[in-house]
């Protein structure tokens, strides 16, 4: 038996084949014990290693935040979350930006997605391309471009009446610059999510039915299409929220202090355990959010399939 497992492990060195080996009916029917042992070992090893790799950092981080040597266990790091200076303004800024981003994404994308569904294939190509373009420019490159534009404005707009607008756009309480950047960054995923939701609907029939009943086109879209798009809209909101809460690149380089930037600054300023505690809490909250989302959409999908 030891010899069998050993040989199974040597074939395991090669990717996938041995893990898959017994899954087919022939492997099972063959009834070869070696085959069975092989599947278990292969799959078990892969899943065990992966599980350890993904769970250990989370577990040790939690441990790190409650292990206050030399006294031992302590929840101080979590208690400090409520008193540590700077966290709440940073979180507030992030949430404000998130709400703004979500609203703007809705306003821009929902009409476009409806139009794409009704319009010509060429319109779809144009919109798809427009929403995919930001993927070609990495966030850091976009940031470099933005800071170049800001530099130019700063040097050239001072004598003009636009200067006040320019300064407003950089207001640290609500930086419109960041808002614009976040909407651009959210576009690719948001478009795909909304478009997928829209594809599941027979928009044309729904619209015609509503219009035959005397609804205007705008009203038909608001009262018939949007309610059917609810789950895709919720998905988009969650994904965008996660993106904005975790965003570090643009904000840190342009010198703003939302949530993620505060965590890093606080950490280097010597507030180690609190910032790690905050980051782990934010992480777990995001996970719960995304898990609820995936479970919810699955359930809805199943409910729809039953109808």
């Amino acid at each position: 038996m030891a010899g069998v497992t050993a040989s199974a492990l040597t074939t395991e060195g090669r990717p996938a084949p041995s893990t898959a080996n017994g899954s087919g009916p022939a492997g099972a029917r063959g009834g070869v014990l070696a085959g069975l042992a092989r599947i278990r070992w292969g799959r078990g090893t892969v899943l065990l290693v992966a599980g350890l790799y993904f769970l250990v950092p989370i577990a040790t981080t939690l441990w790190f935040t409650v292990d206050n040597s030399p006294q031992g266990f302590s929840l101080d790091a979590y208690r400090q979350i409520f008193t540590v200076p700077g966290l709440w303004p940073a979180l507030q800024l992030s949430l404000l930006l998130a709400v703004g981003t979500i609203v703007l994404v809705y306003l821009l994308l929902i009409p476009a997605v409806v139009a794409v569904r009704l319009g010509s294939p060429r319109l779809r190509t144009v919109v798809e391309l427009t929403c995919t373009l930001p993927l070609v420019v990495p966030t850091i490159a976009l940031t470099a471009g933005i800071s170049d534009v800001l530099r130019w404005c700063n040097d050239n707009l001072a004598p003009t009446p636009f200067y006040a607008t320019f300064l407003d756009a950089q207001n640290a309480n609500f930086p419109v610059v960041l808002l614009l950047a976040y909407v651009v960054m959210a576009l690719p995923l948001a478009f795909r999510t909304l478009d997928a939701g829209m594809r599941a609907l027979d928009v044309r029939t729904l619209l015609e039915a509503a219009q035959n009943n005397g609804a205007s086109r705008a009203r038909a879209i608001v009262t018939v299409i949007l309610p059917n798009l609810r789950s895709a809209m919720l998905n988009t909101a969650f994904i965008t929220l996660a993106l904005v809460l975790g965003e570090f690149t643009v904000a840190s380089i342009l010198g703003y202090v939302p949530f993620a930037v505060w965590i890093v600054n606080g950490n280097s300023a010597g507030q180690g355990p609190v910032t790690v505690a905050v980051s782990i809490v934010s992480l777990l909250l995001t996970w719960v959010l995304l898990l609820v989302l995936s479970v919810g959409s699955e359930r809805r999908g199943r409910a729809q399939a039953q109808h």
Partner: protein
Amino acid sequence: MSTAPLSATPARRRPQRAAAGRFAVVPLLLFVAVAFGVPALAMAYGAFTTYNPGKPSQYTMGNLTASLQGGYLDALLGSVKLSALSALISVVAGLLVAQAVVTSRFAFLRKAVLSASGVLANFGGVPLAFAFMATLGNAGMLTTKLHLDQHGWSLYSFNGLTLVYLYFLIPLMVLSVIPSLDGLRRQWREAAQNNGATGWQYWRHVALPVLTPSLLGGFVLLFGSAFAAYATAAAMVGATVPLITLQIATALSGNVDPNATNIALAMSLDMVVIATLVMVVYIPLQRRSARWLV
């Protein structure tokens, strides 16, 4: 005669509709033109010009040449190397995990892994860096308990960063390869076995060739996301590992030499070129893998 007006009505209506549709798209296009187009063009323009406040800018290739020399080139190559290595490892590991999940009899396992992957693939950035610093950093739990530092381990190195990047790349690979593995038909394996093929031969001659486009596509996708990643590296290593994203950030926030900004713009352009190449390779591969695996 009577059919003419009937067919004319929809024909007259359709252009109207299309026009209404086009108007709904206009805000989006305008927005992207301003919020994305202006910075992107400014970047491209700045990469090829000098910048002196008050004086007209001049055309130069100096920024691009500088961005491909010395420390900047090292950073570019470092990024390419890190992204390629971590993407390669993630493709193999992701395929193994996905295969283990797909062939599993437990529906629960599949659901759990899929949800977890969806979450972990989005788990870049600062929390990821912190989790690994608390685990394997200089004062990390595992480092101190297992005395890893005595064996030459350092998280703040090329290898350490690779290990961290796998954390969001492997789930991304699992997500992108599972549909392809689901598309491998059982009949293909049975046909191969009936013809006397071993499991290895089946993989070598049937499954892998069918999977190749999606594996390559996955590699390219992972390469792209590793290449563009900044937050994790910035929060973790500062500037000890030369990476192009870190170099750009340093040049931008340095604020000393106006030329540094333009070199940062040139480096950004280098990144865009590479990211574009990535997309150009990725999209056809995506289409090709869709052909077999309906």
